[in-house]
C-alpha cells in the first residue's frame, strides 16, 4: 500500500516521457550554418566553393574572354590530417562556374576513363549508325587547369581547440605554365570545451 503512490508516480513519469519523445526524421536546410563539430563541414564546403568560384569568375582571364574558356579540374591536395573530400569542393566550383556560362569544363584525368570507354563503345562495338557515332580524335583540350591545396593548423589546450584552414586555388595555363589566377580562403574554427 505504501508503495502505491510511488508506483503511480513512476507510471506517470514513464507515460509522459513516452508522449513527449521527439524521435523521428526531419529535414534541415542544407544551406544553413552548421556548428555541430569543429571538423570540416558542409558550411565550410559551401563557403570555400562559392568564394573561389565567384572570385575566378570575375578574373579578367575568364570575364573578359570573348568565348567561354575551357578548363579542366586537376587535384586539390589535402595536406591536413583530416579527411576532406576535395573532389566535392571542385565539383561545387565546377557547377557554379558552368552555370555562369563563361566556363566550359573538359573531362578531368579521373573522368577520362569513362570518356574513352564511351568512345570505344561507340566506335568499336558496331552497334551504332555511322552518322551518329562520335569520332575519335574530336575531344577539345583544356586551355587551363584548376588545382590547389588545403592545409590546416591545429592547436589545442585543455579548454580550447583552434583549427585554421587555408585553401589555395590556382588557374594555370596548360601551354605556357603561367598562373593566370590565384586566390585563397581562410577559415578559423574555435571549439570551447
Amino acid at each position, binding site marked *: 500500500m505504501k508503495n502505491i503512490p510511488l508506483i503511480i508516480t513512476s507510471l506517470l513519469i514513464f507515460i509522459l516521457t513516452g508522449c513527449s519523445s521527439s524521435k523521428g526524421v526531419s529535414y534541415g536546410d542544407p544551406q544553413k*550554418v552548421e556548428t555541430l563539430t569543429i571538423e570540416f563541414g558542409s558550411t565550410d564546403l*559551401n563557403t570555400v566553393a*562559392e568564394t573561389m*568560384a565567384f572570385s575566378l569568375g570575375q578574373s579578367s582571364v575568364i570575364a573578359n574572354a570573348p568565348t567561354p574558356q575551357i578548363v579542366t579540374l586537376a587535384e586539390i591536395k589535402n595536406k591536413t590530417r583530416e579527411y576532406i573530400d576535395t573532389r566535392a569542393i571542385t565539383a561545387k566550383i565546377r557547377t557554379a562556374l558552368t*552555370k*555562369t556560362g563563361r566556363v566550359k569544363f573538359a573531362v578531368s584525368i579521373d573522368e577520362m576513363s569513362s570518356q574513352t570507354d564511351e568512345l570505344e563503345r561507340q566506335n568499336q562495338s558496331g552497334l551504332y549508325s555511322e552518322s551518329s557515332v562520335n569520332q575519335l580524335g574530336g575531344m577539345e583540350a583544356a586551355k587551363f587547369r584548376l588545382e590547389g591545396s588545403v592545409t590546416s593548423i591545429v592547436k589545442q589546450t585543455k579548454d580550447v581547440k583552434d583549427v585554421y584552414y587555408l585553401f589555395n586555388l590556382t588557374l594555370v595555363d596548360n601551354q605556357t605554365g603561367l598562373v593566370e589566377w590565384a586566390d585563397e580562403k581562410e577559415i578559423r574554427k574555435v571549439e570551447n570545451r
Partner: protein
Amino acid sequence: MSVIIGCSSTPSIEDVSTKSGSTDDLEIREIRTTVKNNILVVQVSIFDDGQKDLGSYRFDWMNEQEVSLHLEAWKPLPSTPGEIIKLQGIAPSPEATKFRFDLSSVD
C-alpha cells in the same frame, strides 16, 4: 533596391539588406558597390557590438527585374566584438546587377 551606375556607389542599407533572428548587436554600417570586369562586387561593413549568438550572412544575387539568379549558402560571421567586419560578395555573372544582403543569427 539600388541600381548600380558607374564604377562605384553607396546604396541605401535599408533597401538592400535584411536582418533576422538575434542580430541586435550587429550593425550594418556601410554597403559599397563597384563593378570589376563587368561583375558586381559588394563590400559590407558590419560593426560587432559584442554579439553573443553566432551570426551568419548571405547574398542573394538578382537580375535587373529582381529575379533571383543565385541565392548563396549562409556563411558564418567571424566573432570580432568591438570591431568592424568587412565582407565581400562577388556576383556570379554580369547578369546579376542587383543584390540583397541577409544577416541572421545561427539557430
